[in-house]
């Protein structure tokens, strides 16, 4: 024991591990980020924004490289020709696309009554497969608070779980520890959805559960929306579409598999709902 305490490097290491464990314990769950973390995040946030945007271009390039179907190859070839002859037009197209995405986002947000929102860009994603966390470039300065829902033009993205001064972390809908109260648009049945753990980022799925199985006629293609129960999410935000119905499979408690309406791999602009008063308009 005396030898252990006499060994300074090991002692420092043990103290560091204990401190980090305490930090991990206190950082579990939703929280407002303390000023030290927030300041570090604020310094890194602009660099991260630039790096993430650059990475999107690199990732698109490699994605194109691995696409091998005829249509993909033809598309890639056409894109290459377009890039060669119409570089300026590409920039213009990019602006048009961004404009379309933002317009779609605004139109979607406009379908909700009395909604206040802050727009943000996705500037980072969790590494590894264990969690689905997105980092956004909006924080307390933009009115962002814990547990506020995040949407994009296609539907629900997730909710804010950590807030810094000008950045925040969002737990995505597809995170396997995340669940939302929803309802089936056609039958108005209330139920829940949760993320399904997947090691691939291309096969995002949700599980639908707590459905009153004896009273429902759920079919593939049914649209799932937030029910508004719990008060965190406004009623009527699109969550996904039923892909497969498992009503007989009651051992797992899962009633259906749902495809999320949001393409999490290509998510760029989002809106954080900072306040809402009514349901879908």
């Amino acid at each position, binding site marked *: 024991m005396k030898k252990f305490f006499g060994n300074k*490097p090991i002692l420092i*290491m043990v103290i*560091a*591990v204990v401190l*980090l*464990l305490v*930090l*991990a*314990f206190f*950082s*579990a769950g939703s929280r407002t980020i303390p000023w030290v*973390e927030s300041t*570090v*995040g604020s310094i*890194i946030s602009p660099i*991260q924004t630039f*790096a*993430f945007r650059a*990475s*999107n271009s*690199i*990732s698109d390039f*490699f*994605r194109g490289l*691995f696409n091998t179907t005829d249509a993909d190859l033809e598309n890639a070839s056409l894109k290459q020709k377009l890039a060669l002859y119409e570089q300026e037009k590409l920039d213009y197209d990019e602006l048009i696309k961004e404009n379309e995405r933002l317009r779609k986002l605004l139109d979607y947000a406009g379908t909700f009554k009395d909604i206040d929102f802050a727009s943000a860009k996705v500037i*980072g*994603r*969790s*590494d*590894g*497969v*264990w*969690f689905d*966390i997105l*980092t956004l470039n909006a924080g307390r300065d933009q009115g962002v608070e814990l547990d506020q829902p995040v949407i994009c033009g296609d539907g629900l993205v997730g909710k804010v*779980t950590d807030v810094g001064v000008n950045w925040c*972390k969002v*737990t995505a809908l597809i*995170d*396997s*520890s995340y669940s939302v109260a929803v309802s089936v648009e056609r039958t108005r049945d209330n139920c829940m959805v949760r*993320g399904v*753990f*997947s*090691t*691939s*980022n*291309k096969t995002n799925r949700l599980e639908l559960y707590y459905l009153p199985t004896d009273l429902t006629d759920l079919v593939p293609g049914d649209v799932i929306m937030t029910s508004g129960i719990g008060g965190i999410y406004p009623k009527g935000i699109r969550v996904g579409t039923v892909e497969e119905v498992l009503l007989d499979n009651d051992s797992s408690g899962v009633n259906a598999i749902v495809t999320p309406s949001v393409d999490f*791999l290509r998510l760029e602009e989002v809106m954080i709902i900072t306040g809402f008063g009514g349901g879908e308009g």
Partner: protein
Amino acid sequence: MRKWLFALVVILAFYLDNVLFSLMGLDVGGVIQGLRPDITLCVIISFGVLLGPAPAALTGAIMGLIADLFFNKLVGPSAIVYMLAGAAGGFFYRKFYADNLIIPTVTCVVSFFIKEHILLVIARIAGARPPYFMTLISHILPCLILTGGVCMLIHLFLKHALFRPLWRNEAIKLD
């Protein structure tokens, strides 16, 4: 000059792991999923073997903390793993020839295995239900092999680019 190269390698590793690879997890034939190496781990362990435990552990703790703060659910787990990995790599500092690729590779593979299992436990505590054997076979083991291979290349690169004096039995200095 070496300080700048050292910083550049650290920033590049951080960028590749947390920004670029987070967009590009590669699926191979539907069996191997989310395949990507842990560059940060490779760099930290290589630093440990070449520079000693203290700088490697410190670099690991800082890189892990920033990654946790910005991208992960909890702040701490990556910092602990990277710090201990740096110390583990540093345990072999000047005990073996720097040319030895087995030491950093084995340390890297073991550290990666432990790191993924710590994250798996945290994911389970958070409420996720990852199927263990499927995840082990389709994700952890392929990534582990890839990380081990990348560690060899990174160690070779770092030894040649940053720590050439080690060949000549000179003391290692960062500047």
